[in-house]
């Protein structure tokens, strides 16, 4: 149900690892519960973030949710398309709706995350 090549956090973020760089986004479960996304607040490039702390916010018409990073490191890129097209999160949460790219400071932190099966179980148990 959830992409196999990604890792997941309990706060419904996903992580794609490639050569020490992590691409981060939020899962379609999170997006669905928020509804139509209207605004995404992201920090600037160069910001240092720590695993499981908040780094931004996603707003829909009826709710606002903080986003928590699944990994520590330095933000090297942010998805600037989201400024004019926040609906990318609704349409393509795992690809075009990516949020930030992080140069990981400690790749072993990924062990604290879930794989797609574990995340699916986690989501089902939450309800």
């Amino acid at each position, binding site marked *: 149900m959830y992409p196999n090549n990604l890792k997941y956090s309990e706060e419904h973020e996903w992580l794609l690892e490639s050569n020490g760089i992590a691409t981060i986004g939020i899962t379609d479960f999170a997006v669905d519960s928020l509804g*139509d996304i*209207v*605004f995404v607040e992201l920090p600037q490039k160069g910001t240092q973030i720590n695993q499981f702390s908040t780094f931004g916010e996603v707003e829909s018409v009826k709710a606002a949710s903080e986003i928590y990073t699944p990994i520590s490191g330095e933000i090297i890129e942010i998805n600037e398309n989201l400024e004019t097209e926040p609906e990318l999160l609704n349409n393509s949460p795992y690809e075009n709706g990516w949020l930030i790219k992080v140069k990981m400071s400690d790749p072993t932190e990924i062990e604290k995350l879930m794989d797609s099966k574990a995340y699916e179980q986690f989501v089902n148990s939450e309800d």
Partner: protein
Amino acid sequence: MNNTNKRKLLMDRSIPGKVGATFPALDIPEQKLPDKSQLREDLAMPEVSENEIVRYFSSISQMNFSIDHNFYPLGSCTMKYNPKLNDDIASFPGFNDIHPLQDTSTTQGALELMHDLQNLLAEITGMAGTSLSPMAGAEAELAGMLMIRSYHLNNEDFKRKKVIIPDSAHGTNPASAVMAGFEVISIPTDENGNTDIDALKSVVDDTTAGLMLTQPSTIGLFDTNIIEVVKIINENGGLIYGDGANLNAILGKVKPGEIGFDVVHSNLHKTFTQPHGGGGPGAGAVMVSQRLVDFLPDPIVTKEEKSSIFNLSQPIKSIGKMGTFHGNFGALVRAYAYIRTLGKDGINAISEDAVINANYIRVKLQDTLDLPYDRICSHEVVFSAKSIKEKYGVNALDMAKRLIDYDIHPPTMYFPLIVDEAFLVEPTETESKETLDEFIDVMKTIVKEAESNPELLHNAPHNTPNKRLNEAMAARNPKLSWRDTKAN
């Protein structure tokens, strides 16, 4: 005016040369105007004739629901009938035209009214002192929390930085607590709708400044643990804030001051019929126990013992002024007239009728909708559309929008957060059994429609000037003024 014409904004109707008002004479010699460099060159305001303006606003007003036309079972809003007498009295020139900064010797009538109202509200809530200066419920909440803060600081008790708030609370509670510098600790409501005592005990300590509690709660239930809740907080040195939004349920039935609340506020636009006005104005009187009287917001009206002269006074440890002047006097006049019209008998009758009406709806709809708390309710009852969503794929929002087609305003839905697919229904005491029966029938019909024709609900409402509006678009690409609509 047809529907398309109604939506034409004033600036789009504007034609140079049209006039909407007459000009008073320049009866004094013209003076030298300032240099042009100081003056504005253009003022893009409409030029529309008076009668066109009357027709325009009259026509768009008819796109509104309103209490004078529709039933509004809005939980926690107390949408009761607005007596016309109160508007008449508020428009007496002696109330309507006086300036707030007139010497108080020239406004003794106004001050007497305020002083009397202070006393009436204190009596109703069982408290020791009142300030009428907050201009809405939320402002009164902030005042209450600032007083609690000042009280502890005044006692040199600097570690009390936390406020406990149940998860069923209205959004203004945590928002106000944060504005007053506190950290919010949320505690759950148990499955009976009462404050979870164990949860409360686990979070309360000497860093607790106090607790904010709505009684009855936002799920329309009177907390049966209330005495213990008060005891726990008091034993730990905390104070108790009572959100008085639901005062309608308990007028004459219990006085919060007697139970041990330190601050209670009242939304005068709810319980005391200040008209809702499409979103205000309101007024939020705040009442306090003896130990907080000195901290009340500025001003309060005092009466000199010997001379019986009324004054505007600043309490000695006042938290300060909540507004430019003395409060929303226009709303205070209406509240006062209302309380005097009803008197002791009438005020007592409000809560009786309000609670009977809500319980009547409860028993008549308990088999149609889910009833999360199956017990006697107060002046409002919370239902859930969860089963209907599971069975027919139709949610509370769809049902609410369909209610509109039956000329009934939807009940409150955006809280309480602790109930899924919630409908918080508050009929108030001013609705007749006939109106309630109609509402009950309509709800039953809508549930049947959910089963047989869910699309009808998904696409509701059908009979309004607009169908369901695209809120995402409004937030993604905000157009907030006439100029914005011209830009692309």
